[in-house]
């Protein structure tokens, strides 16, 4: 399973490295969303600074939709998904590989957006450990839920419009939990408030990863 996961993740990341869709399209889009928030909110009165954690995670959420769609778009041409199905790879491995690749891209994106949140929104990081744990748990949850729903919608003609409607209500607790925990990391909220949220993020990630590992074979068959 792990060997298959590494193979699939390697393939997806190699495609991204060569096509540069993630770096040339998804990452600029994420930064653009951060800039647009400044237009929507008043940048002069500290609104951005206070809302920085939430805005950061909304930008990540939007970008993760694109990352998930991209992850399945690379297999929509030339019956590549049939190839994957017939490859004899363990479906659980395929799931972990795709989720791992999406998670790595999201991590890089979060790092980039984090820098821009500091630059543009004047946010200050106080609790590095809390932020690191939050990002790890939230990213795992987003990637696993994203790949489960991405697979669910993959073969459909309306997948681009359907995926946001399916995925966003599901990852609403991730947005809530990650935002609250990040507020604690930026000293907007007391640090002790962060841990229940981090636990919630962890539970979310475990549930969706387990579901993906167990059900991905069925989903792959039906797509």
């Amino acid at each position, binding site marked *: 399973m792990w060997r298959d996961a590494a193979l699939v993740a390697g393939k997806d990341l190699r495609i991204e490295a060569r096509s540069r869709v993630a770096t040339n399209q998804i990452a600029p889009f994420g930064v653009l969303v951060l800039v647009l928030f400044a237009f929507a909110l008043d940048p002069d009165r500290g609104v951005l600074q206070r809302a920085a954690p939430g805005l950061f995670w909304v930008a990540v959420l939007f970008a993760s939709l694109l990352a998930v769609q991209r992850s399945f778009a690379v297999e929509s041409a030339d019956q590549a998904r049939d190839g994957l199905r017939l490859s004899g790879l363990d479906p659980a491995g395929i799931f972990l590989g795709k989720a791992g690749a999406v998670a790595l891209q999201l991590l890089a994106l979060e790092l980039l957006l984090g820098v821009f949140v500091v630059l543009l929104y004047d946010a200050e990081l106080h609790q590095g450990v809390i932020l690191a744990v939050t990002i790890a748990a939230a990213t795992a949850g987003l990637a696993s839920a994203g790949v489960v729903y991405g697979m669910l*919608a993959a073969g459909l*003609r309306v997948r681009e419009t359907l995926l946001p409607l399916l995925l966003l209500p599901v990852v*609403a*607790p991730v947005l809530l*939990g990650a935002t609250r925990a990040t507020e604690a990391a930026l000293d907007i909220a007391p640090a002790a408030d962060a841990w229940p949220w981090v636990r919630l993020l962890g539970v979310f990630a475990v*549930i969706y990863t387990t*579901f993906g590992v167990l059900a991905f074979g069925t989903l792959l068959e039906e797509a």
Partner: protein
Amino acid sequence: MTASRPTTTSAATRLLGGAAFLALVTTVVLGLGLPPTTEQGDYVKLIAIHPPLAWAAYLSFGVTALASLAYLVPKTRSRAWDHLAGASAEVGVVFTALTLATGSIWGRPTWGVWWVWDARLTLTALLLFLFLGYLALRRTGGHPDTNAKRSAIAALLAVLVVPINHYAVEWWRTLHQRQSLTLTPQENLDGNYIAVMLLGFLAITLTYGWLTLHRYRIERRLDQTAGQSLEAAIAERRAEVPA
């Protein structure tokens, strides 16, 4: 082709519909006749309809989840479960929307705003979106068996996320803001209000059953005609060829 006009009715559903109608009318009449209270005025009358609607919304999604589970278990797999899941979810979306609407109408005079970010309201709104997504997924077509399986998985996934959403919004409103609204009326309501509300529960539950049964039969007919029209088209083409 068929001699009789296709219908989704039967003696039993006619009886059920009649009972639902009667119970609804009685609820409306008795509900409107409830005396206004000092705190909420006439708006307290919404107690006859709002809690029952919320109950029916949750009931319908519960039925969708169970039917989806029954479809996924190989031993009980039957297209009928898929039809039931879809029918119940559709009726559920309507009831959820009505729950939110009546809640807003009730909330405006009680809280002064149409919407508050209370845990229960937020969760209900999320539930509405989850099942709108589910219904959208059901409509994507493809092979009926594939569609049914995919929809069943999506329904179970949606139900899986409900407890997580529940805890998330619950903490969000209590842990973070330390402010919580009580949705139940502050004053002690006498038995009349409770009695009408219970009647409302009966009326809405009967209505749910009636609507879902009809919707279920429509789904089944659609399923049957999907195959029929293809067969008819083939037969038509065959007839064109001279023997």
